[in-house]
């Protein structure tokens, strides 16, 4: 693949979508307030859980905050890239404009996954990092190189898994046409990523690590931050992430065979 060409195309994508999104400036402000309120709300919820208990699922309040921080960062990434692009697939398929994407001399998955960007998600990512730094301070985590690389690896794996989940669901649009609500189901499942996996019952834990690996997304990176993580868990996350990424690619190419335009 021609890396430089794709980089150049991506720059153009950034430029056009930023320009169009910045037209709605008040919108960005409203989104910022939404992101702050939503973080305050979930910390409030967490504080209710902890008001009479020191530990939940073996996690202290300060430690559980790390999960919130990572969730907020990942949610920001979802809102910046995945949500605006992958909901667009539904529109492409309903209106038949996917034809134009497929005709372009560029990889269709690349085009469809990165075309748009929603700048208000950046604010959420920053908010998440602020909370993360605060957590690093109150949990007295010392930063060293191995810790940084491990956390970087696990968080990038989480991003890959998250992307694949979104992409899987959006790809099914080729058969079902309307999948807005399937995305809502995914969203509501992702919501449990705000809490430590150990706070759920055994059956739910199995469900969320085997069938829908939401458990991997926030809990393992948080464990890395606390120095609790064992090597096999990290390796497992890397494997799950690669499997998911490769399959999302294969699934897209497979689904395209069934694409039969619209109208005309």
């Amino acid at each position, binding site marked *: 693949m021609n890396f430089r060409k794709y980089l150049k195309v991506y720059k153009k994508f950034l430029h056009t979508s930023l320009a169009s999104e910045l037209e709605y400036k008040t919108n960005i402000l409203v989104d910022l307030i939404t992101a702050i309120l939503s973080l305050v709300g979930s910390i409030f919820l967490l504080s209710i859980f902890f008001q009479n208990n020191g530990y939940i699922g073996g996690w202290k309040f300060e430690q559980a905050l790390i999960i919130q921080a990572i969730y907020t960062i990942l949610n920001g990434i979802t809102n910046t890239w995945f949500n605006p692009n992958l909901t667009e697939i539904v529109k492409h398929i309903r209106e038949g404009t996917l034809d134009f994407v497929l005709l372009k001399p560029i990889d269709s998955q690349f085009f469809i996954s990165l075309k748009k960007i929603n700048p208000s998600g950046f604010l959420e990512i920053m908010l998440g990092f602020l909370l993360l730094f605060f957590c690093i301070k109150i949990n007295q985590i010392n930063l060293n190189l191995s810790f940084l690389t491990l956390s970087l690896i696990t968080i990038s794996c989480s991003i890959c898994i998250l992307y694949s989940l979104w992409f899987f669901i959006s790809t099914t649009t080729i058969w079902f046409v309307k999948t807005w609500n399937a995305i809502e189901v995914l969203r*509501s499942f992702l919501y449990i990523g705000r809490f430590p996996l150990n706070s759920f019952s055994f059956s739910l834990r199995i469900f969320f690590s085997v069938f829908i690996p939401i458990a991997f997304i926030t809990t393992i990176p948080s464990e890395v931050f606390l120095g609790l993580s064992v090597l096999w868990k990290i390796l497992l996350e890397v494997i799950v992430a690669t499997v998911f990424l490769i399959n999302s690619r294969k699934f897209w190419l497979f689904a395209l065979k069934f694409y039969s335009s619209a109208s005309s």
Partner: protein
Amino acid sequence: MISNLINRKIFTLLKVQYSNMLEYRVEIALWAISGIIPFFMLNIWTNNNLNESINISDVMLSRYFLCAFFVRQFSVVWVVFSFEEDSLMGKVSPYLIQPLNPFFRYFAQHLAEQITRFPFALIIAFFFFIFNPESIWIPNLGILLLSIVSTFLSFLIQFLIQSIVACLCFWTEKASSIERLLFIPTLFLSGLLAPVVSFPAYVKSWIYLTPFPYLIDFPANLLSGNETNIRGGLIMQILWIFLLFPLFKKIWFEGTKKYTAMGS
């Protein structure tokens, strides 16, 4: 004569919308599934014995969250998203000419969707009882009727609030981001994720003056047989409706004057 006409209009609208909704059964089933967050919350509460500190037994808490799920299912409102799309596409113009407030159309849409959703919600409740057989109960008829009324009132409050937000479309075009902002307090304060009884005292002191606890917490407590002030709750619900309705009428009146047809 006039009431007869209104009856016929409402009946026709409902019939049309119901057959429209039946086309998207799978969509609505998925949407029903996306509302299962209360069950995840229940899992956290009971799995960590958090309910001991607020003096609610496991059984009562599971009933509470099941009822919260039901109340949420039948009070979901999305009028702002429909109205925003219609207003951006210029579809509002033909509606405005008709001798019928377009919000009746959306209202019928919501009611029809609730009727379609009912069997799916029952199926989910059935599965819930399979996993939690000890929480089966039969509320007496009076309570059942009262809670249906209060769920409907909760739906009305949310419908009015969202319609007011939707009318902002006449000024800003992207009113849905304001709705997303308003959704955050609704999510955290309505009792969907944690019963209002469990909130810390500094929140409880003012929360009963806001509409939020009457959206889910009050009807769910009523239906599940948890302690609640029935008369006070119903009065507050009605009070909020009387407060919001003139506001909606005012903003609708101002908005239609401001409206400049888009598209076509």
